[in-house]
């Protein structure tokens, strides 16, 4: 590895811009907030509630408009639906299973929720049978949402002497009610080899992957770039945690069905 390669690798870290901006905005808001007196807040809240109640009850158009404003309706969210917990002297588990909420497409929601519930239950069963992994944990979060896509993520951490961290992403096209897979984005099966070759160029000799290791664990980031996600220890030493590889569009453009999703 040359220094320029090291620099390129450093610079190619995927930045979760949505989450980063949100964190920074929250902190700035917290630090610069100006407090009103309690009576100002009370009056303010009362006015807002009153006008909202009156508007919703008297105006059909208002109800119609609110259902179209994003943030009041369109924002998909994840809520905790079930939690498998287990604690004893030598092991513990905390498996949080998400439920996709506030999504218009009920069929899609059902499909995802069944999948999440099944995989959560499976983790719990495996934990109970397996004597090796002594802690298991699953958490979830929404990575971002824009006009086209929603990206959801579940993080699974299993620990014994060694730890395994795995991030599972779900990429949803809301408009068409689809969960995206790599096969849908590419013209033919050649993409697996193409992507594996690209990843192998960047990994050490003892961390080479095969074409069939390219599974559907990926997302499309806010800039419209394809990002492949690998569990810890798969393409780099395990202590480096989950690894992400951003694929430049130049590498895959010819094989893409369209530049509708992957744009850059």
């Amino acid at each position, binding site marked *: *590895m*040359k*220094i320029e390669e*090291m*620099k390129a*690798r*450093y*610079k190619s*870290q995927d*930045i*979760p*811009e949505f*989450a*980063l*901006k949100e*964190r*920074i905005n*929250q*902190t*700035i808001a*917290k*630090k*610069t907030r100006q407090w009103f007196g309690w009576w100002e807040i009370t009056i303010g809240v009362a006015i807002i509630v009153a006008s909202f109640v009156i508007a919703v009850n008297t105006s059909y158009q208002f109800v119609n408009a609110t259902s179209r404003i994003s943030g009041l309706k369109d924002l998909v969210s994840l809520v905790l639906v079930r939690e498998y917990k287990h604690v004893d002297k030598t092991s513990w588990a905390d498996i949080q299973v998400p439920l996709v909420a506030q999504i218009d497409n009920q069929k899609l929601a059902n499909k995802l929720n069944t999948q999440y519930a099944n995989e959560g239950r499976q983790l719990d069963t495996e934990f109970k049978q397996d004597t090796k992994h002594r802690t298991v944990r699953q958490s979830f979060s929404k990575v971002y949402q824009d006009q086209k896509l929603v990206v959801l993520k579940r993080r699974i951490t299993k*620990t014994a*002497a*060694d*730890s395994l961290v795995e991030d599972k992403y779900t990429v949803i096209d809301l408009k068409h009610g689809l969960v995206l897979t790599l096969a849908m984005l590419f013209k033919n099966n050649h993409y697996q080899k193409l992507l594996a070759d690209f990843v192998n160029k960047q990994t*050490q*000799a*003892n961390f080479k992957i095969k074409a069939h290791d390219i599974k559907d664990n990926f997302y499309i980031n806010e800039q419209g770039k394809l990002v492949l996600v690998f569990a810890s220890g798969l393409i*780099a*030493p*395990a*202590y*480096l*945690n*989950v690894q992400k590889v951003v694929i430049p569009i130049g590498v895959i453009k010819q094989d893409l069905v369209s530049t509708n999703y992957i744009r850059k």
Partner: protein
Amino acid sequence: MQEELIKIIRHEQARLFRLANSYVHDEQQALDIVQITVEKAFRKLKQIKEPKYLKIWLIRILINTAIDMQRKNQQTKEYTTEVKKDLVTPISVSLEQQIALAEELKQLSEMEQQVIKLHIFEELSLDETANIIGKPTSTIKSLYYRSLKKLEKKLGE
């Protein structure tokens, strides 16, 4: 001054995240580090008289926060890595030629790593790098050439 700070935070956010991530290699923790840095910066803003030092000061806070977090991680991970060392047979020389970025940097001292990250990776000037680390520019300059040589030797092996 508060407005200048906000402007600089927004302008430098990607750089702050990359630097944080290079210490902890974990997205969530890197986000935590950036958040703690921003909080600290607001809390201690009164100390700063000159807006032109804000950027350097902010990066310095970030690095200190990241090192703290990294130290905490190592304390919890100590047991697991010890076990791992025993299990893994020594890596052969040919494999050593292509070690991952983090592993390469681990060969250098903490300060040398900082110089490489700030001056080469983040393209900050030697003066800025020196100010962030808190050493004279001349010291940083010689440190830079030394670590570069050291690194090239390691990479060439």
